[in-house]
């Protein structure tokens, strides 16, 4: 029995490779089916923008080859997928998943999105996972939750878009129901807008130099499209303004917005300038109740949170190690039962055969035969008692795997299917 993980992640493969390996939810069952057909009792495929990983229960030697072959096909050229990949077995495979679920292996340390992605992977692969991987993924979700609640690994905003949310949340009592205006069509503004929308902010207006581009983004966010010239008036109503135009100079100037901001009646306005070069004239920050932050400010917030999170890595790793041992104790115990049963069955057959042979040569009364039979049972039980206890204890302490393998090899045991 074993658990193996193999795949690629943001540390081992560039984006260009990772995006080719990425699986949509609908593709997962077929890919898993193909790998399981090569020889494995269960499988789960975790595929995000930062990783594609196959978790396999009891894989044959051919199963990893099937995974690399499948991924190599997706590369579509002469490159081999295993050049970008890694493989870990047993405890290290369990540790790997727990670290992934806890956000310890994420590009942004401690990010919480991965928890949902692990859950989704498990849900999608449920039919093919098998009992060991079911248990593994269930426990991985609990480990992720435990790390986040007992350490500061998920505290603060560790990326610029989430820092944008954190900064806005220090101005407004609650973000839900606030209105946001997006100026420009930069990727960063879209990312930050997505983060704000997930907190309940309504993006009501999207303004861009070209109206068509504004309309494309506005449709995605169910907002209204404007040209830049139409946008200034709306500084009177919006709570948050996200700026990310491609303009080579400032577009939000004091002259354009000061008269409009004066009509806000003292309501705070949060302007998040995510453009490089900056879109907002720094003088705008001097306006009463206007709070202006540029990309450097947001990155400073993110860096602070990241530093704080890094200091919590040892505590998180400690929890992961604890939970790996707990899982492995269960897993080892689960592996022991069928092997012990097979050993006992094997020894029982030997006892019965040898007793039968001996009794054929002896002419004993029924009472003596019964006596001898009882003696042989007692002897077998005595012989098997200590190894059984030792193996169960070792399994309970998470050290059963080596003993189990030794036992299987010494006695030529292999539990029959269904055992």
């Amino acid at each position, binding site marked *: 029995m074993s658990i193996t993980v193999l795949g690629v992640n943001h540390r081992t493969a560039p984006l260009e490779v990772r995006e080719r390996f990425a699986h949509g939810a609908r593709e997962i069952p077929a890919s898993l089916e193909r790998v399981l057909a090569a020889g494995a009792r269960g499988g789960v495929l975790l595929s995000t923008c930062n990783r594609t990983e196959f978790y396999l229960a009891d894989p044959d030697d051919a199963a990893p080859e099937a995974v690399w072959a499948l991924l190599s096909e997706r590369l579509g050229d002469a490159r081999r997928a295993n050049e970008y990949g890694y493989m870990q077995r047993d405890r290290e495979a369990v540790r790997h998943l727990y670290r992934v679920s806890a956000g310890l292996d994420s590009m942004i340390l401690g990010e919480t999105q991965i928890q949902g992605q692990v859950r989704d992977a498990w849900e999608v692969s449920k039919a093919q996972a098998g009992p060991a991987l079911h248990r593994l993924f269930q426990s991985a979700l609990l480990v992720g939750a435990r790390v986040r609640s007992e350490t500061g690994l998920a505290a*603060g905003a560790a990326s610029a878009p989430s820092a944008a949310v954190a900064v806005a949340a220090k101005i*407004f009592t609650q973000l839900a129901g606030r209105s946001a205006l997006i100026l420009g069509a930069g990727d960063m503004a879209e990312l930050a807008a997505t983060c704000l929308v997930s907190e309940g902010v309504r993006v009501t207006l999207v303004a861009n130099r070209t109206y068509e581009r504004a309309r494309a983004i506005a449709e995605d966010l169910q907002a209204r499209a404007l040209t830049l010239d139409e946008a200034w008036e709306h500084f009177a109503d919006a709570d948050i303004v996200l700026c990310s135009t491609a303009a080579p100079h400032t577009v939000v100037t004091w002259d354009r917005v000061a008269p409009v901001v004066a009509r806000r009646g003292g309501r*705070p306005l949060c302007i998040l300038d995510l453009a490089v070069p900056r879109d907002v004239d720094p003088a705008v*920050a001097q306006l*009463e109740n206007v*709070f202006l932050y540029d990309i450097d400010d947001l990155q400073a917030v993110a860096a602070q949170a990241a530093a704080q999170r890094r200091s919590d890595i040892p505590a998180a790793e400690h929890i992961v190690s604890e939970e790996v041992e707990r899982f492995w104790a269960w897993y080892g115990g689960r592996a022991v039962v069928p092997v012990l049963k097979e050993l006992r069955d094997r020894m029982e057959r030997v006892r019965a055969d040898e007793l039968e042979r001996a009794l054929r040569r002896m002419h004993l009364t029924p009472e003596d035969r019964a006596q001898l039979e009882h003696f042989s049972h007692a002897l077998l039980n005595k012989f098997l008692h200590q190894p059984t206890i030792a193996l169960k204890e070792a399994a309970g302490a998470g050290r059963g795997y080596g003993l189990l393998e030794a036992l299987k090899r010494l006695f030529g045991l292999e539990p029959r299917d269904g055992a």
Partner: protein
Amino acid sequence: MRPVILVLHIIALGLYAVGTALVLAPFAGLRAAPRVLALAIPLLGVGAHVVGLARLTPFVGVAPTLSMLALFLVLLQVASEGLFRASAVGVFTGPLATGLVGLALLIGLAPEGAPPTRGPWSILHITISVLGLAMLALAFIAAALYLLQFRELKARRFGQVFRLFPPLERLDQLNHLSLVLGFPTVTLGVLLGFGVRYAGGASVDAAQVVWGMLTWLVLGWAVGVRVVRHWAGRRAAFASIASFAAVLLVYLALKLTAPGTERFL
């Protein structure tokens, strides 16, 4: 002083000190205590304090008033945390309440000898007046926190104030609520005080009336600009601080120039 009063006040003092340490811990770079603990410990102190204070009726002397003020400050601190998630209020109220209980213990909570008689209206007057002052103190604290957070946000400094203080709007709401509830409470306390004195045939010093009215008008102005003219944010915070400063200044001025008349509200 009866030992039970002393013991209960010392228990309250200890629990307030622990509660204050929990509030201050994150500012010292330590991990924040669980919220339930940050609420439960001051509340346990309040429990002991209420029992101890109840045995001090009819609240003769300065010490019981200080003790009562500390009690209301802690209650308002817990309410601020519970309703507004404004644990930073405890940065001010925690040490202040702990100090007030300590001061009350130093002064001596109950005078020796037979206590003077005092009617229930008089006790109600004292209680309501002190509650009103505690609310105005909370408004002052919320305003001060607002201005600190405002300065940090404007200056793009993302230190402990940014991380540990509540959002600006929430502090503004806390200031608004404290003023709007505190001013009528103080007014009711003053009216009860005058009623009790006139009913008892006691005279009221002219200085008390003049300064009391002036201070009441300043407080009324701070509430008026918020409620009628819809001031908010920084302007409202300054108004709130100015009005509370007026109360403190008049108290100190009367205490120094005309001792005995400082109880003008």
